């Protein structure tokens, strides 16, 4: 029985990429195992800080079933507390970036005045603020602020870019159809900016997820998946630390995947092919 790969068959293509992905992940596990072995052999630790993949996955299953080994809190507890902070930081960023971005895009003096601020602050890694924010705003709100800083700039720059990219003939058309300036703003400018806003959200969510995990490393309260990793390392439970890292990776993948999907749907709905 001969199987022939047909690149015009949707199921063949899907099967192909599924197989490649699985093989790729298996090889990654193997590389992880090899590196762990090397670290173990050369450093002569009792328990290597670089846990073996099989230990990490065993810890992960235990974590899901019985909660963490020290406090016996369920995994959902650790994850949800991170997600809540993440969402709060995201909403705060959106609430600030949307009006400021629209103003900057629309009014040249505002743009000229605020651009230096953005350009000075944007290159600073958001996590650099974490130690200060944790002192100023306390652990929880400090982490939220780090997420805010991480998300607000990609949102802002994308919105400003979107407003400036608007096709001027659309504004001309609206004017000849009698739209007032306020109507042009609401009915032409805002909708035409939406695809760019979605792109900003897509980028922002990825950055934001990195920020929350990193910011939680500076936490002193027992909350968040980032703190969980630090907590386990401090206790030399490296296998559980790596289980936490796997959870972080999967959740990161989910957030960006969802954002990508929504962004695609919205952009199509708004008539833009991204």
């Amino acid at each position: 029985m001969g199987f022939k790969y047909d690149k015009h068959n949707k199921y063949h293509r899907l099967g192909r990429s599924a197989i490649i992905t699985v093989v790729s992940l298996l090889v990654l596990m193997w590389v992880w195992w090899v590196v762990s072995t090397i670290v173990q052999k050369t450093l002569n630790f009792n328990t290597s800080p670089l846990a073996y993949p099989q230990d990490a996955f065993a810890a992960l299953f235990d974590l899901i079933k019985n909660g963490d080994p020290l406090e016996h809190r369920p995994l959902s507890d650790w994850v949800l507390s991170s997600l809540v902070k993440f969402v709060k930081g995201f909403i705060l960023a959106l609430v600030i970036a949307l009006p400021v971005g629209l103003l900057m895009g629309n009014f040249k003096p505002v743009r000229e005045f605020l651009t230096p601020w953005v350009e000075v602050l944007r290159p600073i890694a958001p996590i650099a603020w974490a130690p200060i924010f944790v002192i100023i705003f306390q652990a929880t709100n400090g982490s939220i602020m780090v997420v805010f800083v991480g998300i607000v700039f990609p949102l802002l720059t994308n919105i400003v870019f979107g407003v400036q990219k608007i096709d001027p003939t659309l504004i001309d058309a609206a004017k000849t159809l009698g739209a007032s300036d306020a109507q042009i703003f609401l009915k032409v400018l805002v909708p035409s900016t939406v695809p760019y806003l979605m792109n900003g959200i897509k980028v922002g969510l990825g950055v934001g997820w990195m920020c929350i995990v990193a910011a939680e490393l500076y936490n002193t309260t027992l909350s968040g998946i980032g703190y969980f990793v630090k907590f386990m390392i401090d206790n030399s439970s490296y296998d559980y630390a790596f289980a936490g890292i796997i959870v972080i990776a999967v959740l990161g993948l989910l957030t960006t995947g969802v954002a990508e999907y929504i962004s695609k749907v919205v952009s199509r709905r708004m008539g833009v092919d991204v």
Partner: protein
Amino acid sequence: MSEPKIKIEGEKWGKERTRADRTDELYAHIPEGDTLMKIENLRVVYRTDDKETVAVDDFTIDIKKGELISIIGPSGCGKTTVLRSIAGLLQPTSGTIKIGDNEVKGPGSDRGMVFQDFALFPWRTVKQNVQFGMEMAGVPKAEREERAMRYIKAVGLERFADSRIHELSGGMKQRVGIARALVMHPAITLMDEPFGALDAQTRNIMQEQLVKIITHSERTIIFVTHSVDEALYLSDRVVILTKRPSTIHTIIDVPWDRPRDRTNPEFTKLRKDILAYLEDQNVMDD
């Protein structure tokens, strides 16, 4: 005669905008064939840092109610500049444009416009695009829907009323553009090379369709084109511009009834004469 519902006033140019629906009714008292719009000594100068370009100079004309008038000229002349000045999208350097007794002081719904690159809102469906102006004017939803559908049918797009713009062909897009402008019943409809982005065959079909539309409803249309053939096929009068700075070279009355026969020897001769003039102006592109 009642007082006009809308007056365009205000200190700042372009800030007071006519937003009303059915602005043609404001000029119902002007009989067909009388002057609806007066353009006097229109002059437009473009300024850049180091030089001034006079695009249009000493442009004076009366537009009659119910006529289709084409503006044609060598490429790079101020055809579109004239049209954009009338639309109020561009502030003339000097001169006046008056519709009835109202001076143009910015864009407004009394001068509907059809754009060369369609300028449709991609996030709206065909029906929502056609309704845009009525929405701005606050026309009730039921009336909006009914009128939009009537115009969508008139341009033969009823099957696509709920389609999105990117699903349409170029010709279909421009039919939406035309419906969107005409549904507002503007006092004057401006068309800026509306079929310029279409292929030759679609272009002919669109010209025939436009002829049908204007023979069924009285419209005053100013039509910018660079196709002599198109101008002669559609217009009651053809305004021929000189090259920059553009002024009016000649105004030709086109005598034939519509629909016209492009192979008629007189038609061909007139076309040849105009082409020869344009060629003489040294910058030809048709």
